[in-house]
């Protein structure tokens, strides 16, 4: 056995040295290479998963936002229609009021003018009656003097 070991150059110090070498290498690689690489892979996996989740959420949000926007636009349209209708109605009633007012004013002006004309006529009649009376008196005086 000893001859066999000697033939292959087996020596206990060398064997122990190689065992120690392997242990050192394994510990060093574990902390310098395996763990950081695995951590990076894991971190990226989580990030990707988070990204997919975010994208899903964004899609969901987008669809709800679309629905909300549609509802809002519909509401706005309805409201606008209402506003236009009420404005139109108001405008109609305002017109009627103005026309009525104008009618009333025209009527009152006409009545006024009529009254004034009648009064003028009556006044002129009275005045002419007075004139006639005065002329008659003058004529009577002249007749008496002569």
């Amino acid at each position, binding site marked *: 056995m000893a001859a066999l070991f000697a033939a292959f150059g087996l020596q206990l110090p060398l064997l122990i040295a190689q065992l120690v*070498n392997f242990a050192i290498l394994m510990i*060093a690689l574990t902390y310098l290479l395996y763990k950081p690489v695995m951590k990076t892979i894991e971190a990226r996996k989580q990030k990707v998963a988070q990204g997919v989740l975010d994208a899903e959420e964004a899609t969901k949000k987008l669809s709800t936002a679309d629905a909300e926007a549609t509802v809002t636009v519909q509401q706005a349209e309805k409201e606008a229609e209402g506003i236009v209708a009420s404005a139109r109605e108001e405008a109609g009633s305002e017109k009627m009021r103005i026309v009525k007012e104008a009618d009333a004013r025209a009527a009152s002006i006409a009545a006024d003018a009529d009254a004034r004309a009648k009064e003028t006529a009556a006044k002129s009649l009275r005045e002419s009656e007075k004139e006639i009376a005065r002329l008659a008196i003058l004529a009577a005086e002249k007749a008496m003097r002569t």
Partner: protein
Amino acid sequence: MSSGIHVSLKAETLGHILGFPITNSLLMTWLVMVLLIAFAYFFGRSLKMIPGKLQAAIEWGFEGAYAYIAEVFESDALAKRFFPLIATIFLFILVGNELEFFPGVGSIGFFHGTDFAPLLRAPAADLNFTLALTFIAFFTIEVTGIAVLGGLKYAGRFVNLKSPVGFAVGIIEIVSNLGRLVSFSFRLFGNIFAGEVMILVAGYFLPYLLPVPLIGFEMFIGAIQALVFAMLTMFFIKLSITDPHEAH
């Protein structure tokens, strides 16, 4: 080529530091460690959320390996625990094997008289290295079996007195478990050492061209052997934690 082909089964000792033998394999092992740790240090610090090409490739490899280990163990917790061990076995052997073919490795060295001792030698072409890895794999496998199944249950796999057949199976189990010590270490050592010898011989006959396809093939073998060592470790861990009565 006055010295002809010089093949040394054992790693050449370059010198001693405080009585501790420094072989060319050990030197190469340290070089591999320095390269791997330096790469890990700089790469680990430059990790980004948006990966570059290198990071994407390495992450792809890690993720694939981890998924495979988790699939074999059928457990994420076990995969997390054993991933560093299996990955380190693979990377250590792989880098050591592939570095062997870089120019200068095996060709730069010292002459001791007529004997040539290269400065660097593939770690796996030294039984000390492969046996050390084998011990680590072996003890991991056995200790995991005891830890997961419990000492009595795990021992019951090897010592079974309920029936003669069961007893024989237990003996076979002991032999096959101990046999791993030899098969693990000599498979890796044999493959890598034989590859070196083959390239050496081919280079002796025809220094140009002939070694090129062989080097390519041996690089492939080097990667395969790294994979085999890592995967066998993984499968034997899985076997050791599988309850024999539930498995069938």
